């Protein structure tokens, strides 16, 4: 059985929702990311305590016509990608807060 994964927004970013999209800027190297509508849903829900599979099941599969397995696979790829840029933090444990989140490794 696969363990749940938890995602949290990095504290070293600035972000702003613009319509259905979200712009995220790394505060450490000024790189800009533009998140589309579905990625924005994951971003907004990435509170560090809600498992990623729950976010996908409750926030994405209920709103968009997409198979749960495919949605979760896409979501995992997305969060790994942002984690590689230091924008999101990914952990096998809940991320209690920004101070704890800093030490979490993907």
């Amino acid at each position, binding site marked *: 059985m696969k363990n749940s994964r938890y995602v949290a927004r990095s504290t*070293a*970013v*600035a972000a*702003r929702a*613009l*319509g259905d*999209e979200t*712009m995220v*800027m*790394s*505060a*450490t*190297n*000024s790189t*800009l990311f*533009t998140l589309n509508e579905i990625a924005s849903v994951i971003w907004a829900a990435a509170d560090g305590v809600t498992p990623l599979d729950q976010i996908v099941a409750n926030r994405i599969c209920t709103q968009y016509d997409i198979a749960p397995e495919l949605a979760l696979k896409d979501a995992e790829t997305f969060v790994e990608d942002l984690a590689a840029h230091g924008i999101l933090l990914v952990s096998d444990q809940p991320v209690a807060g920004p101070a704890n989140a800093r030490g979490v490794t993907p």
Partner: protein
Amino acid sequence: MPRVTAVTESCGVVVEIGGIPIRLRCADRDFVRQIEERYAGFLSSSNDVSFDFEIELASKGTESGDDDLRLVLDSGRWLMERGDFRAQWNPSTAHGRIQQTINPYSLDSVLRIVHTLLLAHKRGFLLHASSAIRNGRAFLFSGVSGAGKTTMARLAPPDAALLTDEISYVTRKGNSYFAVGTPFSGELVRPGENLEAPIEALYLLAKGPKNKIEPIERVAAVRGLLGNILFFARDPEFVKLVFDTACEFASHVPIRQLTFVPDASVWELIV
């Protein structure tokens, strides 16, 4: 017998850009005269200055303005260094010191950096853009080098007051944004007029076969704006501040794409 000492007095001049008077002192009177000439439209007789800089001219230096700028915040002091200058500035004491070659462009660079730092905390910014006032409203034309900033300034009709052909100065008052004239010039080598006006629109420039103004998505607008804002500091809090400022600006000021043929007819659209 009292000791005989030589006292070198520095003379000063106050340069006021965007309503921020900065006193520049230097022992070299010839250099002070150069400053007076360069910033002629932006001199102030006020003794009530916001900041004070002592300039020390270096006899030797690499004189290279092409080196990378290093800008760090250290114990409350901003330290800035490039091949042609080294400066430190403490915002809390309102004092700074500049060591530079005699090249006045070095001082220009220091002032640009200082103003970017000051403006950031007031939710304003410096932008790679030419700007002009027409009918009481300011228009900004932004883009990378070669996009047409200076061309737009050069083609401006006689009724337009040019604020700059290179670096636009944007301030925020309440929910309104204003463009302010600066002495920071580009290829036109002509300082802007010391005026200000509310910003009507920001145009991202593109050259094309005919003149047209097109709306752009908010995300593209913010991306285009951020790509042209001057910010040198890599301090994370500063980066966040600039990002938020750009998003706020884009929510209050129309940002559009202006495709233009480089002749005076483009100004028929700017009214």
